[in-house]
């Protein structure tokens, strides 16, 4: 019995380590992709949104956007992009730490990692809304303020747009799921464990 609970504790930490690692790795992948199709761009134009930067054909898209007075993609979410790397690291560390702690810390500390994809989605939506509602009224082509598509298909002028999540986002969801799964798992597993277990997480569970 003792041995089993010890193993469970190690597993928790290990799982959280993997979750944290996934989140860190997700920095290297785009979270969101916007593809624009128009006759004169046979291959389409792609904006790849990473946590830290925008890549792909972002410059060309920004250039086109200036005709409708939309701000450049590069100027979006400056604070988030600057803080992304340290925050991801911090959330990872906190999550791993949560595996070794008891009480409310057990879930409180991993909450940032768990909620990370949701946070990204909300932040992205907010920025898109802002971009669609802060267009320069002096732009050559005036459009009514609009909510750009966060997910799915849309049409702006001659462009068909397709917005999808990308690898980075799915990695963060996986990280979140791993951390969540563990939260449930430890609870269930640890309920029958008697008090006095040597590993902290077990103690937490026992309480």
């Amino acid at each position, binding site marked *: 019995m003792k041995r089993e609970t010890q193993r469970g504790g190690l597993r928790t930490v290990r799982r959280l380590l993997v979750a944290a690692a996934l989140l860190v790795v997700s920095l290297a992948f785009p979270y969101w992709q916007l593809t624009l199709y128009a006759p004169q761009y046979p291959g389409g134009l792609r904006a790849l949104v990473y946590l830290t930067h925008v890549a792909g*054909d972002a*410059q*060309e898209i920004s250039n086109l956007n200036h*005709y409708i007075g939309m701000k450049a993609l590069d100027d979006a979410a400056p604070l988030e992009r600057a803080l992304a790397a340290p925050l991801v690291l911090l959330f990872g560390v906190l999550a791993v730490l949560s595996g070794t702690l008891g009480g409310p810390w057990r879930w409180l500390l991993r909450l940032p990692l768990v909620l990370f994809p949701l946070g990204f989605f909300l932040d992205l939506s907010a920025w898109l809304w802002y971009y669609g509602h802060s267009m320069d009224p002096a732009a*050559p082509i005036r459009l009514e303020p609009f909510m750009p598509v966060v997910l799915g298909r849309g049409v702006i002028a001659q462009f068909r747009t397709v917005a999808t999540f990308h690898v980075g986002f799915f990695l963060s969801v996986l990280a979140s799921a791993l951390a969540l799964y563990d939260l449930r798992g430890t609870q269930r597993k640890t309920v029958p464990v008697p008090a006095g277990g040597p590993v902290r997480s077990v103690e937490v569970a026992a309480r």
Partner: protein
Amino acid sequence: MRWSRIGAFAGLALAVVLAGALAGQAQRTGTLPQDVQSLIEAKGLTPDQVRAAIQTYVPPGKYDEYLMFSSAGQGGQVLVFGIPSMRLLRVIGVFAPEPWQGYGVGSEETETILGWRSKDPRLAWGDTHHPALSETNGEYDGKWLFINDKAGSRIAVIDLRDFATKQIVTNPNAVSNHGAVVSPNTEYVLEVTQYAGPFPFRHVPLTQENYNRHFRGLATFWKFDRTKGRIDVSKSFQIELPPYWQDLADFGKLESHGWAFWNSFNSERAIGGTLEKKPPIEIGASARDMDYLHIVNWKRAEELVAQGKYQVVNGMKVIRLKDAVEAGILYLAPEPKSPHGLDVAPRGDYIVVGGKLDPNVTVYSFRKIQEAIRNKAFSGRDDYGIPILKFDAVVAAQVKVGLGPLHTMFDDKGNGYTSLFLDSAVAKWTLGPPYNPPDRAWKLVQKLPVQYNIGHLTAVEGDTVKPGGKYLVALNKWSVDQYKNVGPLLPQNFQLIDISGDEMKLLSNTPIGIGEPHLAQIIRMDRVKSWEVYPVGTNPLTMRPDPNAVKAGQQRIVRQGRTVRVYMTAMRSHYVPDRVRVKRGDTVIFHITNIERTKDAIHGFAIDRHNVNLSLEPGKTETVVLKAERPGVYPFYCTEFCSALHLEMMGYLEIEP
């Protein structure tokens, strides 16, 4: 039971699939739909013409298989075609201004290339004749293209990364040339003079005595520096030649590597005098039955230069004629009456000379030439002391191909194709061993009429060590009745010919209304790898970052005394800055960078009432130097339709009195 049912189902499925496939097959191979049949009948097309139409058709959005680089003659340009469609893909400005490309109309870079920033006379045209693609191991490598200007004795270097001219060198000692050819590893670009001139160039009264004594031809070996992508004049050299009119040249390859060959006409040294009732040059220069093939050991010449056995004439190292003869680097061999083309066979073993006034191609054997030199099989020496090899000792064969044989190209099956100017035809004939067994050697196979007066012809990589076969293009000088008359200046006529089968077949006609092309070369398209856009801030002359390139946010106007520098960017659809104010007498220098990254997002930059029009492809930085002379407010604007707000892409240049 169950298994047999499964078997039955499987059999049924297979039958359905097969039936479907067969039906599809029938539809594909069966008779043409009625409307297509009607089209063919309405136009009265023969099956061969339908076949040719299909063979040369390239559907929208699809690419051709080959690129053809053609000279544009007195247009001074290079033309780039797709083959087999024969669609014109590009015109490359070389020796003449080409406003669309912003070539020679205001950009400092291109005017530097054209030599207009030097003290030389400002030549606004050139006569491009012979394009030469760079080679590696005797095959085209798709990196560079060289072309000569016959009238200005110049050679141009074109970079195939951006299909733009990068360098023009002027021969300091020659006033005329005929052709550019490259050695098998592009060590040298060879330029041979056409018309002899006083050497060193100066005025000498034109008398026969003076002509014979002071006039000379020259072979110039321009050293090409691959790493710099430029001809290095300091490592180039010339060989002094007798005042015959040297003509087309070719480098030896494989077994004849290290040697070069060119022919000559007017070994009579006729200089005319029609007003004085002397025979015109065309008569005087055709008097003798034989002229001279020049056989040159350029490797040995290179050694001579390394040993310092040269004179420097106008900054160019020249091996004098006497030294060349003494060192055994120059020999002559008789060749029939005023020949024209000279082409080395793929293995480097035969040298084929087109007879022009003689109905034969005369084929020289490199091995026999070597033997004759070793055995000193000379029939004598010319007036300048050059040993003349015995004709019979060096000739492998003469093939009677027809009247007016000029140029020869080769295919991948051991055939030669020779243009017949007088016959207006292409002759296909077989090479000797090892290309063909002795019983099939040196035989005329077919003559295909072409329309009309064919000059050069070109086959797919047909002058390399590995000819590609498949297509041949006849470059005809006259089109006469082939097109709707568009005035007395008729287009030239390019004809695409299928040479993949036993018989040559005419596929298509293409009119050329932009100059008189001479030679063209056809290269496999996949060998040419060009840039889609320039790295941002690239100077097209150096192909490196331009120190005056600016990014967004760095644009500015700086005045230093009477000089005003404008650091400008172009991007859809505005210039920054778009207002420039200077004073009369100022020198205005625009450094303009197209900061776009998108393929085809090209901008122009033209100033009204000024001789300025740039083509700014994405990433390119160019400079305009302008003397502000006439007060006024001049619009400058984008000349390349770039966007929906293209017309708004403009600004004003104010010149205050």
